[in-house]
């Protein structure tokens, strides 16, 4: 089971960047193998905001966010006090920034492999969880 950082989802819509194909292929694997993914709720506004700035079309951005929400493989986890307390502990352990630490906290708590393009999550998260690029 996996947790996926917002950077991977956004890169699957960004054709000119180096990890575009890998990110798309990873999502295709999730679909084909019916793999289970847990995501923190904050991923929805992160993706929406990032894509809106990249494409400048509010209708398409909103529809994309809704279609992402409806993928049956994805379970969206509320960022409650259990996750935030864990994120604080992870920040103190690793020096990760707040939102980065929330993804690592979820992966740590649910025993998930984190898939990310973020260098800090890759380097600092490695101390606590399984983490890799797509």
């Amino acid at each position, binding site marked *: 089971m996996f947790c996926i950082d917002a950077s991977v989802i956004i890169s699957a819509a960004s054709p000119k960047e180096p990890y575009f194909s890998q990110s798309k292929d990873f999502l295709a694997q999730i679909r084909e193998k019916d793999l289970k993914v847990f995501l923190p709720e904050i991923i929805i506004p992160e993706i929406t905001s990032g894509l809106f700035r990249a494409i400048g079309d509010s209708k398409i951005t909103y529809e994309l966010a809704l279609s992402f929400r409806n993928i049956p493989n994805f379970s969206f986890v509320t960022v409650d006090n259990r996750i935030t307390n864990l994120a604080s502990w992870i920040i103190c352990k690793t020096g990760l920034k707040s939102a980065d630490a929330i993804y690592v906290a979820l992966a740590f708590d649910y025993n998930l492999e984190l898939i990310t393009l973020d*260098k800090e999550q890759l380097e600092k998260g490695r101390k606590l969880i399984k983490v890799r690029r797509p």
Partner: protein
Amino acid sequence: MAKVIEKNSIKIGKESMVILPKMNKKEYQVAWRNFEKMLKKASRLWKIKKSSLEIIREERE
């Protein structure tokens, strides 16, 4: 720690079970096709030079 205990539910530590959504094959394919179609539309409209990583870093800093 998450542990699969049966097909459509997952137990998370001491917390209650997470019940996974039940979907038939057709609904599953439709949900994915819709998401992939929207990703394609977004790809065609992409208009900035920043990478996804730069976009996310800006979001979080």
